[in-house]
């Protein structure tokens, strides 16, 4: 039966969903995770999970969810998987409810939904303010059920370090290291699913967990798995500055009425409660009347950062703005946002029910990830039970969850990640089952398994022996500071070039770093050399791709190449609109492409290529969150079509 064993690396939402589905379909599963799966990064998600269940009578539908997601991602996502995800979303939420997730309820006992950024509908199911934790626990319980039946083996506190590929380049197993005994072992399997989450730690202090090294991604990438859209990383507008981590206040704080403001007058030193309403600048509400404080994340982040850095209006001249909930009753806030407001109070010692929070944008999420493919049916949806869905360019290697590049384009909508993780996990469970049914590959030969294990042991021995003057944790801090300063909120080509040089410098220093710890038990430092090497490898892909993409798209903001829309007061007849749309179309022509980074062992930097985006369901159009310009665009396109028809 071991030829039916699938190896799932990662026990967050994506990995656990894949595991339970694969078990249901008759496979056996080995799960690997750096921590007990119940402690995976997914627990951090606070706000909720999206699905157009439409229980609020708002006329919401999966198709509108699809349109919001594609537009939110600035059209960079391939559309078939996104369409299938949005259509499946209500059923996924129902399934999670059946598994026992303690979702909030309406008085009638139905699931309750809230509003999140980038949409006008109540589409986000939530469980208190720890939705990710609650979803993860329910999946963890299901997997435990299969474990009790002997279908699942868990290798927790193990780190995946290498794919085992046969002579045809197909995956037949992995090598992993026990992080307590530091021993390596090879595991055979007919498919490998990488559900290893995001690579946030390359940005230093972020909203991510301390295990988000991206080291699994880096290992697979170095062995030939492509990486899609590395430059697309999301900043969360509402991070809480902290000494070890940037915690965040979920978008739901804005969903529940939170208002973002700064003192209207530069240099206003008064405490918040002495500033009268007229002298408070609710800049998101004033600049984006339709969406107000709920504009998509990239816009909110940029506005908040710029109002501090360029306009100098940050609180007390610092990099911080107010996120104010004090106009809501304490009882309401406790019920709706209890857990996340707790977090703020716990870490800042101030009660956000009484005093506005201070926030600033932080690195949060990677839209980019291992390049995952798909197969469509004749309607342009995912072909059910195709082994190609979620498979990377390497046969038998799959990518799901935040580790894949597939569902969010250039920018992810709030509460869409949890859905994409579970959905991709379920799809992947079906894919591997289909692969198992058709696969004729011979199981890995034991000599190959041994050889690959030896390879990793040798590499680790070398790391352990490293004894140079540099401290890898110091290098990491500098890497994070540099990435956050030059490659996050705004990108400028001169700075990115400078950053490339800095990263090469970190790489050189890493070779002169010490493992700090020679012990053969629970050695966090020697493995960190490997993890840091992975971060540097992936940072190069992020920076190189960012440097090449000369445009603004979604979270990737490069002001020198911006194509700003005319102000909303500009009359429809004004030629400014035509000029804007002409430039938009030219930019789409050049840049509406998926970045594909490929590792080339003979070069120190990645090879970057581009792939067409599958936009078969919805043609690209400029994003418009001001509510004006829609008419202007229609007029422009009508004229253009008429001209084309004539010609």
């Amino acid at each position, binding site marked *: 039966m071991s030829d039916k064993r699938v190896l799932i690396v990662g026990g967050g939402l994506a990995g656990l969903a894949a595991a339970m589905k694969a078990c249901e379909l008759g496979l056996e599963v080995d799960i690997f995770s750096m921590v007990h799966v119940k402690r995976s990064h997914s*627990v951090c998600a606070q706000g909720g999970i999206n699905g157009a269940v439409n229980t609020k009578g708002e006329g919401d539908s999966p198709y509108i969810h699809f349109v919001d997601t594609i537009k939110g991602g600035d059209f960079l996502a391939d559309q078939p998987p996104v369409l299938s995800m949005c259509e499946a979303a209500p059923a996924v939420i129902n399934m999670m409810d059946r598994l026992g997730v303690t979702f909030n309820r309406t008085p009638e006992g139905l699931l309750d939904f809230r509003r999140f950024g980038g949409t006008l509908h109540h589409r986000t199911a939530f469980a208190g303010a*720890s939705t990710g934790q609650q979803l993860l626990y329910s999946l963890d319980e299901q997997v435990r059920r299969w474990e009790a039946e002997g279908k699942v083996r868990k290798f927790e506190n193990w780190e995946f370090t290498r794919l085992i590929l046969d002579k045809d380049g197909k995956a037949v197993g992995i090598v992993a290291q026990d992080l307590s005994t530091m021993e390596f072992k090879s595991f055979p399997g007919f498919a490998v699913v990488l559900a290893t989450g995001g690579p946030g730690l390359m940005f230093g202090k972020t909203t991510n967990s301390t295990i988000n090294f991206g080291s699994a991604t880096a290992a697979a990438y170095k062995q030939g798995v492509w990486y899609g859209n590395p430059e697309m990383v999301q900043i969360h507008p509402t991070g809480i500055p902290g000494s070890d981590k940037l915690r965040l206040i979920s978008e739901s704080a804005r969903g529940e009425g939170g208002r973002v403001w700064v003192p209207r007058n530069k240099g206003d030193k008064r405490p918040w409660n002495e500033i009268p309403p007229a002298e408070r600048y609710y800049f998101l509400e004033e600049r984006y009347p339709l969406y107000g404080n709920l504009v998509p994340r990239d816009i909110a982040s940029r506005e908040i950062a710029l109002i501090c850095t360029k306009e100098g209006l940050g609180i007390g001249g610092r990099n911080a703005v107010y996120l104010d909930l004090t106009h809501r009753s304490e009882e309401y806030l406790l019920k709706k946002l209890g857990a996340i407001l707790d977090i703020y109070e716990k870490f800042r010692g101030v009660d956000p029910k009484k005093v506005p929070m201070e926030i600033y944008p932080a690195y949060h999420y990677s839209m980019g990830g291992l390049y995952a493919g798909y197969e469509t049916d004749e309607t342009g949806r995912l072909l059910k039970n195709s082994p190609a869905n979620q498979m990377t360019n390497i046969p038998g290697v799959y990518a799901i969850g935040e580790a894949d590049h597939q569902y969010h384009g250039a920018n992810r909508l709030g509460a869409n990640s949890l859905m994409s993780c579970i959905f991709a996990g379920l799809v992947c469970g079906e894919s591997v089952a289909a692969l198992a049914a058709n696969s004729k590959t011979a199981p890995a030969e034991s000599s190959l398994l041994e050889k690959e294990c030896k390879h990793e042991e040798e590499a680790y021995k070398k790391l352990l022996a490293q004894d140079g003057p540099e401290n890898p944790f110091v290098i990491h801090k500098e890497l994070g500071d540099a990435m956050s300063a030059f490659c996050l909120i705004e990108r400028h080509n001169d700075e990115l070039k400078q950053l490339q040089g800095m990263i090469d410098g970190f790489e050189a220093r890493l070779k002169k770093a010490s493992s700090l710890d020679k012990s053969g038990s629970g050695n966090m430092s020697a493995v960190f050399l490997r993890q840091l090497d992975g971060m540097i490898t992936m940072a190069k892909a992020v920076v190189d791709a960012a440097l090449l993409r000369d445009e603004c798209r979604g979270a990737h903001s490069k002001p020198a190449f911006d194509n700003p829309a005319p102000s909303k007061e500009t009359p429809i007849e004004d030629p400014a609109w035509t000029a804007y749309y002409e430039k938009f179309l030219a930019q789409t022509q050049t840049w509406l492409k998926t970045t594909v980074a490929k590792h080339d062992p003979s070069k120190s930097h990645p090879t970057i290529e581009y792939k067409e985006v599958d936009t078969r369901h919805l043609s690209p159009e400029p994003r418009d969150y001001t509510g004006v310009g829609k008419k202007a665009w229609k007029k422009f396109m009508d004229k253009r079509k008429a001209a084309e028809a004539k010609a």
Partner: protein
Amino acid sequence: MSKTVEVRIKRQDSPKSPAYWAEFAVAYEEGMNVISLLQAIRRDPKDKSGKTVAPVTWESSCLEEVCGACTMVINGQVRQACTALVDKLEQPVKLEPMSKFPVERDLRVNRQRIFDNLKKINAWVEVDGYHDLGPGPRQNPDDQTTTYKLSECMSCGCCMEVCPQFTDINDFIGAAVLGQARLFNMHPTGAMQMPARLDKVTGPGGIQDCGLAQQCVKACPKHIPLVETIGALQRDITLTQVLGALKK
């Protein structure tokens, strides 16, 4: 001029080796917690006397007190390191690994026992399948308030660390796991599987080993009403036994 934080750490190089104390002086920063102390140590791993030592090993993940990973004994009290703010701690800050679980290295322990116990008591809802079976059963919003609380348990082990009945020579499943039994008994579908679950809960190492010492509830960082929960579970058991007897 620069302020320092004095830290004493109970270290252990491997599961079998003896424990020893090490002392560090870390430069103070505003807003520090125990995690940032440990991070500062590894960026400059020297003890108080200036001797270079191996960085300290500990476990962490979320840094938001939702994963339970970073649990350790801080100034004699078991809690999460990520929410232990230095400004609120007496110095020297004393860090020890949990004592009820085997130490793997320094502050990192092996808590597999918790997860094994969850497996023992069928801590899950048995559904028919993962395909689309429509909406789940309706649930009273008031019940959700209770189940959400129970479901916030992050398997950190604080309640077991303080429990006089939970020792390394017995196999008591501990308060958290009993709380999870209650959680699944309350779910409309989970309730259908209650008898099988309660069988396990009253088996070896089960609820009868609880001495109602009530230490657990004081230690739980998530304020889960554990003692009340154990009481409710007792009632479930009695009721199920009575119903079972009636059916016979």
